[in-house]
């Protein structure tokens, strides 16, 4: 497991020589083994934040450090995995092979097979293991992507609107599965979404981003599994919604 400490982080893109702040003054602590959701409007810098944590893009300024067992760790000492908005499966690999590709550095083939089998069953993909990505539905594909990440056994899982492209039913199901997985595996998860319901349903803490800045961090002190018709759930959701809308 791993926690994340973000200090004074900023990311500037240059468009025709003009600086555009994607993120500015970001100070954020993500506790070891916690489920944090990040919510905000489109273009508020949510995805950029994840890409910076993952190391897919360099910071313009500031620092991101990782902590595990009370020690500070470098990025290279961490196993960090990301689930993207699109499943990003390799079209030439089957569901099973796509999941196994996360274990490319594992020499023990027996172990790879066991791990992949385990997550295939856990995610209900057993029947589809020999299918190619184009043969399965969007929900199945996103499940495969999630399975691939879980096979990797990361200390930190970053999720960039992984359920954004799914229909409401599949989405609700996967949200429940996500909570169950978190309770079983206790990995640190940072989950980005533009859906406030989803953010409150999943996170122990919700970070509200707007125009590249953190405007609030809201603790969600509700027990899992949450019921979206509960009054406490409703109030938290409205509170966050108002924060975002009032800008």
């Amino acid at each position, binding site marked *: 497991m791993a926690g994340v400490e973000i200090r004074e982080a900023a990311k500037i893109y240059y468009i025709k020589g003009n600086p555009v702040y994607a993120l500015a003054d970001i100070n954020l602590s993500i506790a070891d083994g916690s489920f944090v959701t990040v919510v905000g409007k489109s273009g508020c810098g949510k995805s950029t934040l994840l890409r910076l944590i*993952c190391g*897919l893009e360099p910071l313009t300024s500031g620092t991101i450090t990782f902590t595990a067992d009370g020690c500070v760790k470098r990025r290279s000492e961490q196993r*960090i*995995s*990301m689930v*993207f908005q*699109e499943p*990003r499966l*390799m*079209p*030439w*690999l089957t569901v099973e092979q796509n999941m196994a*590709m*996360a274990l*490319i*550095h594992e020499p023990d083939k027996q172990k790879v097979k066991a791990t992949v089998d385990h997550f295939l069953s856990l995610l209900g993909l057993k029947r589809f293991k020999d299918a*190619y*990505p*184009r043969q399965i539905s969007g929900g199945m594909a996103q499940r495969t992507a999630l399975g691939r990440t879980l096979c*990797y056994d990361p200390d930190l899982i970053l999720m960039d609107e992984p359920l954004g492209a799914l229909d409401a039913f599949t989405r609700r199901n996967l949200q429940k599965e996500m909570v169950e997985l978190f309770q079983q595996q206790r990995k640190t998860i940072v989950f980005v979404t533009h859906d406030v319901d989803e953010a409150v349903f999943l996170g122990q803490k919700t970070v509200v981003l707007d125009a590249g800045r953190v405007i609030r961090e809201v603790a969600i002190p509700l027990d899992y599994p949450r019921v979206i018709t509960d009054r406490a759930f409703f109030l938290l959701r409205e509170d966050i919604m108002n924060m975002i809308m009032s800008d």
Partner: protein
Amino acid sequence: MKLIKGLAIPVLILLLWLYVSIQGFFNSYLLPSPVTIAGTMGQLIENGLLLKHIGISLYRVLLGFSLTFLLAFPLAVLLGMNQKWNDYFDPVLDFIRHVPPLACVPLLILWFGIGEPPKIAIIMLATFFPVFLNTLNGVLGCDKKLLEVGQVFEFTAVDRFRRIILPSALPSVILGMRLGLGYSWRSLIGAELIAASSGIGYMIIDAEQISRPDIIFVGILTIGLFGYCIDYGFLKLTDYLMPWEDRQVDYGRG
């Protein structure tokens, strides 16, 4: 069904040709009847001449093509994966690309005589660019999003190539090989027409000199037939190598 549809037009042409020959609309010297041509083909197969010429032409094509592939494929992969070198290679390659290989034939004959080397060289010149450019496009066209997945799972450069870039470039590479084989076949016949003492191209030009249009027809039909067969083989190979594609990738064929 597809086979029957595909055969419809050739059969129609053959019947028309037969009819025209029987009616004697054209001088049978200028347009020999299909029966004569079939007879000539039988003779040429029987005395081994046709097979000898095809064998030699095929050998040249395969040798030239393989050598080109060994050169063009790695170069395209290297340039595709290290784009900073592009600035050095781009102008040179663009220059050579615009020179038709047949324009080099006189020079090649001057340098190498009329033996095998100039023919292989012609094939290499003609085949290089289709293989090189298509492979390069395939490598450059690899989805950056898939490469990021490799980055997340800490792929090495070799893994990145083997597991992501190569499979994603494969359709382009095979397209390049198919085009390349077509080009090598054409340029070889061109070279054999100009200077050779064997091969299908030589058989055709020799037939012209001894006034045997039927042999010319046999040569043309053989070239077309072999080109078709090789291409068909490639389509089958595509099916085999890329089972994740729904049907064979129909590179502008359909």
